């Protein structure tokens, strides 16, 4: 088992604490079958161009940190660029720290014996943004998304730039801070109808935002109807594919989680 990134510096007042779904991500990406699939697509013998790995909604940054630190095991190459987005500025600050620490920890451990292939993954930035709406079309090689997937009556609105203003937060009363914290936490899990409202927005953007060799990993719970989602992606046509890459939980329970891999067949790699 590869080491899990340290998140002890993260305050979970407004940020999702790594849980079963986060760990399913780590297990899936580092599984023998997925890392083999990813290495075939991205290792240094098949392509020189460094892959850009983007996580939408990073929260604590545990998933992106893991991928950054263990790129050799996952992608078969020591060099990737990582970028994280989150609508919560605190999550961006936390992610930046988590990813840098994870990269550093792995370098010190020297899990890669050959010094020439020391990990030189670089975290290029954490940005406060809604999903991938501020990223350039066709730029993402690997997209990771652990969505707010819980079905809820209402979908919380997106925060505005000013709600993330650190100066504003300092002048809040205790009760308004509590309200603000609860609101930001609701954004980490509340998915609206079928728990799919945010995920559907991301799915709609996938054909545009992924590069030609791009691949997306999205986590779904049973109530999101993963089989319907996969079917929908096949219906996009044009070689689009979706397959279950990992799963956990009790088959009968509602908490059954799956991670699907979405990619375009016949794309130039």
């Amino acid at each position, binding site marked *: 088992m590869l080491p899990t990134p340290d998140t002890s510096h993260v305050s979970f007042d407004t940020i999702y604490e790594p849980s079963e779904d986060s760990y399913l991500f780590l297990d899936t990406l580092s599984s023998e079958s997925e890392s083999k699939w990813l290495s075939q697509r991205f290792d240094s013998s098949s392509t*020189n161009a460094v892959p850009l790995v983007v996580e939408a909604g990073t929260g604590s940054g545990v998933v992106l940190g893991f991928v950054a630190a263990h790129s050799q095991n996952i992608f078969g190459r020591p*060099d990737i660029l990582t970028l994280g987005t989150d609508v919560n500025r605190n999550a961006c*600050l936390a992610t930046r720290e988590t990813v840098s620490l994870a990269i550093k920890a792995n370098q010190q451990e020297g899990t890669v014996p050959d010094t020439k292939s020391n990990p*030189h993954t*670089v975290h290029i930035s954490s940005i406060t943004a809604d999903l991938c709406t501020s990223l350039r079309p066709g730029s993402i090689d690997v997209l990771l998304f652990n969505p707010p997937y819980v079905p809820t009556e209402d979908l919380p609105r997106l925060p505005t730039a000013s709600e993330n203003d650190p100066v504003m937060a300092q002048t809040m009363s205790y009760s308004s801070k509590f309200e603000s914290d609860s609101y930001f936490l609701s954004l980490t899990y509340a998915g609206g109808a079928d728990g799919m409202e945010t995920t559907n927005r991301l799915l709609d953007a996938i054909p545009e935002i992924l590069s030609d060799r791009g691949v997306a990993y999205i986590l779904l719970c049973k109530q999101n109807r993963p089989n319907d989602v996969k079917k929908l992606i096949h219906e996009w046509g044009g070689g689009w594919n979706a397959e279950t890459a990992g799963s956990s939980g009790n088959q009968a329970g509602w908490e059954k989680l799956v991670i699907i891999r979405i990619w375009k067949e016949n794309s130039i790699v």
Partner: protein
Amino acid sequence: MKVITANFVTCAVKECKTSPASFPLHFHDAELEMQELDFQPEFIRNVIPRIDWEALRVTANELGFPTLPESKPEAGALNDEQTLKDLHRILLETQVMEGKLVCGNCSHEYTIKEGIANFLLPSHLV
């Protein structure tokens, strides 16, 4: 945020996506900080294919770096250590800590604070 980020981001306003003027976003009042990183020539060589060169030239110029060559380094130029070192410095060692990123199409300003750029839009632009 590292300067290379500017090569991958664009205006969040939907209508701007189709406008060439929305890329790259333009740095205003940028405060830079240098963070030393091990120079890895192979890494920079592998980063170059990912770079939109025209956009990087604009960005480097706005941030006050010496003018980059007109075309992307290829073949022999990829073995020129000085070229690779210059790119390493601009793309990976330079961090923009404060300032703004401005869209050339709609003029919307995205604020950068403590190295975190905020791309959330005010409600009237969503």
